[in-house]
């Protein structure tokens, strides 16, 4: 298991927090609406094989909130600049939920620094007639419960009392998620028109019991990205890399290894 070091980088005038650990090909993880800042077992395991980089998005957690931030397109451009600044090439990009939306948008714009793209229950598109969960109307407890198929995980998280800093970070994260995702709700009506431009090997991973973005979105995303592959995990909610960490590590590394040129 590999540990991480914490650092701060200033990119596009915005100071962002970043966890980084391990050695190997770069693996950039873009987090979802709940934020990042914790070196999860998922990252530790991947860091045995890869150089795992987990930034907190501008406006989230310990990162600053820049004036220029309005939408997911701003995030996509920000991470293009982020990869430039860090000199990353052959990047294995993984994005979860909001981060999956950013990853897809980024890959449509410019995938020259990417090796693979993996989208974990990504936001970013809308499937007519299939409603997403209204997470802004859920209480904190409902949200925690609806994120997981296995309620034992929810119980464990609910038993932990957040301190003042953590409470503040959660408010900050919720505000930023609303800012970029409230309307249209968690998608960009124009992105689907251009997803076919993603030419790098792409894998989509979904939990079959996702209550935030239902699993029906998986095939829709797959069909919009030619040649992409969809993997559905059984008895799993919106956060497979937490709820089914070992299975997700296996899927992710197998896909990267299989995509080596």
């Amino acid at each position, binding site marked *: 298991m590999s540990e991480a070091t914490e650092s701060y980088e200033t990119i596009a005038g915005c100071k962002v927090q970043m966890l980084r650990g391990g050695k190997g090909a770069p693996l950039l993880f873009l987090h979802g609406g709940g934020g990042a800042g914790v070196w999860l077992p998922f990252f530790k395991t991947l860091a045995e094989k890869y150089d795992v980089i987990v930034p907190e998005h501008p406006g989230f957690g310990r990162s600053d909130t820049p004036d220029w931030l309005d939408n997911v397109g701003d995030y996509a451009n920000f991470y293009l600049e982020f990869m430039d600044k860090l000199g990353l090439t052959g990047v294995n990009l993984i994005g979860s939920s909001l981060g999956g939306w950013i990853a897809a948008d980024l890959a449509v714009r410019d995938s020259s620094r990417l090796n693979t793209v993996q989208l974990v229950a990504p936001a970013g598109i809308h499937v007519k007639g299939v409603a997403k969960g209204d997470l802004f*109307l859920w209480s904190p407890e409902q949200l925690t419960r609806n994120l997981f198929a296995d309620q034992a995980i929810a119980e464990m998280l609910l038993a932990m009392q957040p301190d003042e800093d953590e409470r503040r970070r959660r*408010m900050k994260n919720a*505000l930023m998620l609303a*800012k970029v995702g*409230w309307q249209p709700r968690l998608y960009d009506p124009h992105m689907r028109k251009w997803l076919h431009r993603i030419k790098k090997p792409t894998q989509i991973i979904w939990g079959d019991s996702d209550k935030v973005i239902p699993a029906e979105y998986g095939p829709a995303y797959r069909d919009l990205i030619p040649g992409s592959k969809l993997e559905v995990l059984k008895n799993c909610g919106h956060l497979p890399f937490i709820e089914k960490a070992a299975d997700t590590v296996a899927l992710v590394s197998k896909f990267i290894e299989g995509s080596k040129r």
Partner: protein
Amino acid sequence: MKFFMIHLMPYADIDLDYDKKHNSAWVTLPNTYFDPAKGPGLYNRFIDELVYADKVGFDGVCVNEHHQNAYGMMPIPSVIAGALARETKNVKIAVLGRALPLLTYPLSVAEEYAMLDNISGGRLIAGFVRGIGAEYHSTGVNPAESHDRFHEAHDLIMQAWTKPGPSRYEGKYYHFDYVNTWPRIVQQPHPPIWIPSQGSSETINWASHPTRKYVYLQTFSPADQLKRFMDMYRAQANKYGYEASPQQLGWATPIYVAETDEQAKREAKVHIEAFYNKFLRMPFEMLLPPGYLSLASMQNVGQKARAAAAGESMATIESVMERGMFICGSPDSVAQQLEHHQKQVGYGKLVAMMQFGTLPHELTKRNMELFAGKVIPKIRHLGEDDTPIKVEAAE
């Protein structure tokens, strides 16, 4: 002191047991709870009550804007204001909506208010609000854009009224090449402007600015909050280098008057408790979606409001009276309470909600008669300062 009567026009025939199945009277409460056969009677009764305020001697009447709820049936308040413009002769007519950020074409408010000002012969008071958090769930407008959209829409409307058209407005959310509102507003340079709020330092700093000096109206809040925000307005005015007049400070609160304290409490009890516990009921996430308040303000809201919104503490007539959220009693004791609060907080405009929750028509009328006949004369001299409020020119 100036006296206004505000009406919310609640769907007063609501099945009060709705909360056994639904957690709010807002946003998600099925509209099948509204009986179309009862709508016409309720609307016309409520309009009659506002017209009656003109007859018994109020200085003004107020209508209000909320969407998709049983609490108030005026999603388009100017429909009611238009009827009042014709049916009343003397009262000021305050529209305590329009929720500007909810609109994609805010120039419609410049038009709508100008029409009302024309029809009423210059009796309009123009309210500007952001709408409460629930509105952002109902309309889908992004609450994180609410403050910025409000300020832009306000600037745009003021430009439409005060700058000869056509002129150009170039904002981030609103951009118009032809700002050229017809009809023009009657009251020059513009009607009095009121900013109703549940209390926020950002709003107070903005409303009290020397180029605006807008009337700040604190709505349905505990007495300690009322004092805190009125003091904040005065302190901010001092920082800006002027003294705030009582005429810049308004207080909106439900009031009930009967012959004796005992009778007033007995008659009002079920209706005021329904108002606070049933009509206002909504979970915290509905009331304050992320982004509606700045991060700093959101942190100040704290756990108390969270618990209150979750309905963990049910209001009783005693609890709301004790907190100064309901003024109730004989004419003497109501006058006394209002005088006490006036001395404490220095307000000069009282916005009395004479009908609340399920309060029936006859009791509403008697409430108005006793208030206008026996309370107003006792306290009219308070908070009087008729010196016109001089606003500095904006650069």
